[in-house]
């Protein structure tokens, strides 16, 4: 209920009054850009002779973050309504497996894709219904599906991976490059544009933000907030299923560990991007930048040759520093 705070003195938690008059300028929407630029500059300078700035490496970062970005896009909607979806990682794992099994069973590429996405949609539907019909907090609902779906993914092949030999599938969903451009980049761009338009330019997007901003006012305004919530969870399930396909295509297999633990990275990307965990404020582009920033830090630290323990320590520090730096940069 932090947001209520701003009601009364029109400021963010910090207490300074940096509210500008242009199209609602909210620091949260911009910090991540400055932070991201800072991170890029830092690594470019320190790691310029170690291949960090090579096109290959930069494209790798995009490949590695594509799944997080895509799940983040849908999560931006979920969090914008003030809810949360912890089950995305498990959904991705299960979808990678169901798609791989469908491919193995000879349903062909269309069949595999349909099964994978259908898996995601189904779990999303269950999440949405439990939230809206039973009124169980989304944190609990999706924590439960995180476990249930994760268990299902383990159980369905008894933890064995399922190889995928369909070359077209593997090309389209993850491994392919069109000229120098990885297909994952294309997916990311297309999905980002659609999600951005959806959030900013359509009634659905406005109603999503209104639901998160003040559910009861939205309801009084004729927004079917239950329907909106159901839809954002469907969307989240769908995108998680899609991420599962991409994991499968990139690894040429389905496996129950794909996406495991991604929920935290996805939520982190969304929050870093400037979406408020309390709902009502969301930015799709910010999410993608947030995700790229996390990916860049991971990549840079590995290239630096640090131990895993050092990577973990320094990653935390960089995130805090970058956010603090971003805030400075905005304040000028």
């Amino acid at each position, binding site marked *: 209920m932090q947001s209520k705070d701003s009601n009364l003195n029109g400021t963010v938690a910090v207490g300074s009054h940096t509210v500008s008059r242009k199209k609602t300028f909210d620091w949260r929407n911009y910090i991540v850009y400055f932070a991201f630029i800072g991170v890029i500059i830092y690594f470019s300078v320190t790691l310029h002779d170690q291949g960090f700035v090579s096109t290959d490496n930069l494209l*790798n970062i995009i490949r590695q973050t594509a799944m997080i970005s895509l799940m983040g896009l849908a999560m931006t909607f979920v969090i914008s309504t003030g809810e949360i979806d912890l089950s995305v990682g498990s959904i991705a794992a299960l979808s990678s497996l169901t798609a791989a099994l469908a491919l193995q069973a000879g349903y062909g590429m269309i069949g595999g894709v349909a099964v994978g996405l259908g898996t995601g949609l189904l779990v999303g539907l269950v999440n949405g219904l439990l939230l809206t019909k039973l009124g169980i907090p989304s944190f609990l609902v999706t924590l439960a599906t995180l476990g249930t779906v994760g268990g299902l993914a383990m*159980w369905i092949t*008894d933890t064995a991976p399922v190889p995928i030999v369909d070359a077209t599938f593997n090309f389209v969903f993850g*491994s392919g490059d069109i000229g120098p451009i990885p297909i994952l980049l294309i997916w990311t761009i297309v999905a980002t544009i659609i999600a951005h338009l959806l959030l900013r330019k359509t009634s659905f997007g406005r109603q999503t933000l209104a639901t998160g901003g003040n559910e009861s006012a939205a309801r009084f305004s004729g927004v079917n907030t239950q329907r909106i919530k159901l839809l954002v969870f469907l969307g989240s399930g769908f995108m998680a299923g899609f991420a599962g396909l991409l994991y499968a295509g990139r*690894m040429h297999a389905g496996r129950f*560990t794909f996406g495991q633990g991604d929920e935290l990275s996805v939520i982190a990307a969304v929050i870093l991007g400037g979406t408020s965990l309390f709902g009502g404020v969301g930015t799709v582009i910010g999410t993608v930048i947030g995700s790229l920033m996390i990916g860049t830090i*991971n*990549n840079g630290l*590995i290239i630096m040759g640090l131990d895993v323990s050092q990577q973990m320590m320094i990653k935390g520090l960089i995130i805090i520093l970058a956010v603090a730096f971003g805030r400075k940069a905005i304040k000028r």
Partner: protein
Amino acid sequence: ACGGQQATTDKEPANKTVEMPDTGSLTINPEIEDKEILGTGPFGEQAVSAKTLELTEEDIAKIKEGSYTAALVMHYSGTDYMTAQTDALKASFERMGVEVIAVTDAQFKAEKQVSDIETVTAKKPDIIVSVPVDPVSTAAAYKKAADAGIKLVFMDGTAQGLEPGKDFVSIVSGDNYGNGVEAAEVMAEELDGKGKIGVVFHDADFFVTKQRQTAFEETIKEKYPDIEIVAHGGITGPNDGEKVASAMLTQHQDLDGIFAIWDVPGEGVVSAARTAGRDDLVITTTDLGTNVGLEMASGGTVKGLGAQLPYDQGIAEAILAGYALLDKEAPSYVTTPAVQVTKENLEESWQLVYRQDVPELIQSAIQ
């Protein structure tokens, strides 16, 4: 316990449960080649080959009379290796008339494992077969279980301060050191004894993976001085292989090979090589998983690996538990040899490792 097994039968052919003969004495696969075991036990003792273990029909009949129960307390259960071992344990125990009453997975967390041991103890099993996550912090819990009269059979490692013969029956282990050596040998052969390579290692204090890494690196350094290990990348989970290998390939464009600590991160290395367009990279690893098997069969970047014999290890563990129930003296450290797997011997090796035919998918890829 049958639920899991039933589930496996109608799934992927690769994981079809092996039929356990219901007559005759119980031993591991007699066709396993006798090899020198390179690793030694935690107490420095020389290993005894699992092939020497045997339960006769009379032994089994006697065990059956006791209607004993067993619990499997695993450190982690999500690998082909562990699945095969669990399957073998369940099958052998069934043969012995021992009911498996609980299976747990500690997710690599020692504290969870201690809870699991406590919980399982409440069901008063006669036997616990377990992989300790950590020899130090789980010791007290194992000790308590042992003091309660439960027969402990360890796989792959023991807990500190426990004495064989007194606190636990014995340890069954694959030859982890040997595994690393086999992976190094394949690597050296593929590179003709010279080149630059990287190592994707498990950045955790875990006995099994440490041994493999040490073996690999020592073999390379001592036997193949012209091969230079130029890069190290640590992982903490199975999904990290790709990121680490990608960064390695970015930094060292001239890398000739990468050793991955086990097959799952190895799949990530394969994906990284593919992305970087490095079809000529030589990848070796340990554990014969389906995906690396397929990659090897289709002439991909994975050239070979050191494999363990999880199924036979599982049988050996069950037999040892049987020894304890019969008050028969058991050797304290039992191992199965490491197997070098390359494309050439893939079909036979698969038979050896999993006791079943190589999956059709891999079979067709070999041709």
